């Protein structure tokens, strides 16, 4: 599915490198990334395991620049080759515009190549691709190794449709750009064929051959069923959809409920919005009321605090007055004690003796004796 974006003037094509594990798909992309001019290439993204095996995909965007006013881009993808990664491998194939099947030429790997080709066909059919319409080329890689299968044998086994093929040595870059150029051309021709259906016949002669891989019968039926609604006109499609929806609604009650819920949801939304607005208004009113209350409270507290302060000051004053009143009494008591002490000191017999005149007389007498003795 080529993406054409008129707003960005951009055409985008998806090319997938498919093939068995270790056949050199990622090596193809690495070489292109290494050698392509820097203005054309983007960053190479590799979703790989620790052992450098592709886990999901490798991705390399290529921009070949302006072609008739359109920036033309190719997105190159690889798939994980190992058999057990089929789930992710299939995802990469979604919306593919062109395919490169990278086959390992070694004789021992022939079985793996065949298996991978069958897997590719199965996956494409599951997506509902018509094989003849999908641009695809073959790349027989590792031609430099010994013990490789002959081209004739590979063609016979892998390429019954007679698609174009290239011999390659991916590690040395042999045949890589030839492959890329060829598949790009096929993809663009195919895109042109889509937009100009009259010229389609020429394309088919270039791309595809009458031999088609035979899909399992059951899947064919599925394909037919899938392809029916695409051809039907839009009104009929809409009718069918409506019928399907009705059937679903009848068959499963839950589905009906879900649908009802979905229908109700917009109304609920409007109601919710109204509710939210009402709630907001109520909140605002509440807030204003609260603010008023708070202000009142503040005023009250101010008055209270002022009165408290007055009370306190009064109390303090009273206390001070009391203290002042009590203080002289205390002073009196101290004076009394002083007098008492003085009385006690005076009345004590020791002090009495010291302070008697006889002591002074004795002192004088001793002093007179000292002077008389010297003489």
């Amino acid at each position: 599915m080529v993406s054409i974006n008129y707003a960005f003037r951009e055409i985008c094509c998806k090319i997938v490198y498919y093939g068995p594990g270790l056949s050199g798909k990622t090596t193809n992309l690495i070489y292109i990334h290494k050698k392509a001019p820097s203005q054309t290439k983007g960053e190479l993204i590799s979703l790989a395991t620790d052992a450098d095996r592709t886990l999901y995909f490798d991705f390399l965007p290529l921009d070949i620049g302006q072609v008739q006013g359109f920036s033309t881009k190719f997105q190159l993808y690889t798939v994980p080759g190992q058999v057990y990664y089929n789930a992710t491998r299939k995802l990469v194939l979604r919306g593919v515009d062109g395919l490169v099947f990278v086959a390992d030429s070694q004789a021992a790997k022939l079985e793996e190549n065949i298996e991978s080709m069958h897997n590719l066909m199965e996956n494409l059919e599951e997506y509902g691709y018509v094989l003849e319409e999908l641009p695809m080329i073959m790349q027989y890689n590792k031609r430099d190794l010994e013990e490789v299968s002959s081209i004739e044998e590979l063609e016979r086994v892998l390429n019954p449709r007679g698609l174009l093929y290239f011999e390659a040595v991916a590690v040395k870059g042999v045949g890589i750009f030839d492959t890329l150029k060829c598949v790009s051309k096929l993809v663009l021709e195919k895109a042109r064929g889509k937009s100009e259906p009259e010229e389609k016949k020429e394309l088919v002669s270039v791309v595809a051959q009458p031999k088609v891989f035979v899909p399992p019968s059951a899947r064919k039926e599925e394909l037919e069923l899938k392809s029916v609604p695409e051809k039907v006109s839009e009104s009929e499609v809409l009718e069918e959809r409506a019928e399907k929806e009705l059937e679903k609604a009848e068959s499963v009650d839950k589905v009906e409920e879900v649908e009802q819920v979905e229908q109700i949801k917009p109304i609920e939304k409007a109601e919710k919005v109204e509710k939210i607005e009402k709630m907001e208004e109520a909140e605002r009113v509440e807030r204003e009321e609260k603010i008023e209350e708070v202000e009142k409270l503040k005023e009250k507290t101010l008055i209270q605090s002022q009165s408290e302060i007055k009370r306190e000051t009064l109390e303090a004053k009273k206390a001070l007055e009391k203290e002042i009143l009590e203080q002289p009494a205390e002073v009196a008591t101290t004076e009394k004690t002083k007098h008492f002490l003085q009385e006690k000191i005076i009345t004590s017999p020791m002090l009495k003796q010291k302070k008697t005149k006889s002591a002074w007389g004795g002192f004088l007498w001793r002093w007179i004796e000292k002077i008389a003795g010297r003489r």
Partner: protein
Amino acid sequence: MQEDNLIIYEDEIEKIDRALIKLIKGAEAKCALLVDKDGHLITRQGFTHSLDTTALAVLLAGSFASTREIARLVGEPEFSVLFHQGKRDHIHISLVGERSILVIIFDDRTTIGMVRLYAKECGEELASILVQALQGKKKSEPAIDSDFTASAEDRLNDIFKDEN
């Protein structure tokens, strides 16, 4: 082929861009991308200059595709919303219509709830735009003619001529 070419015109992109800008402003997201399920970027809005949007689109589409397979294995038809939480930036991915993915990158300036709300609204709008685009597609003129393929071939030969 399974599906027709994805063709997008300027007036559709304008409509989509307007919806994305509204989403970014409303949800206070960093940027929003609309990606095709196959990994093609349809359009982008917001601060995307520092991002490799091509690679981002491809990887996100891959991530979404693998999640859908997981859903199928679990028995769900599809996980319609995917959310990646990071330390600074987070990514919200949601399905739009049948073949597009809306990717919103946002940080802690907003909340996941806001992003989800706006993503759902925007998704419905985008889905209707894309349906209209598909219906009006048949009137379109062919973009790729024989001259185009010829000149594209010349470009390819020019670019890779030294490598052969």
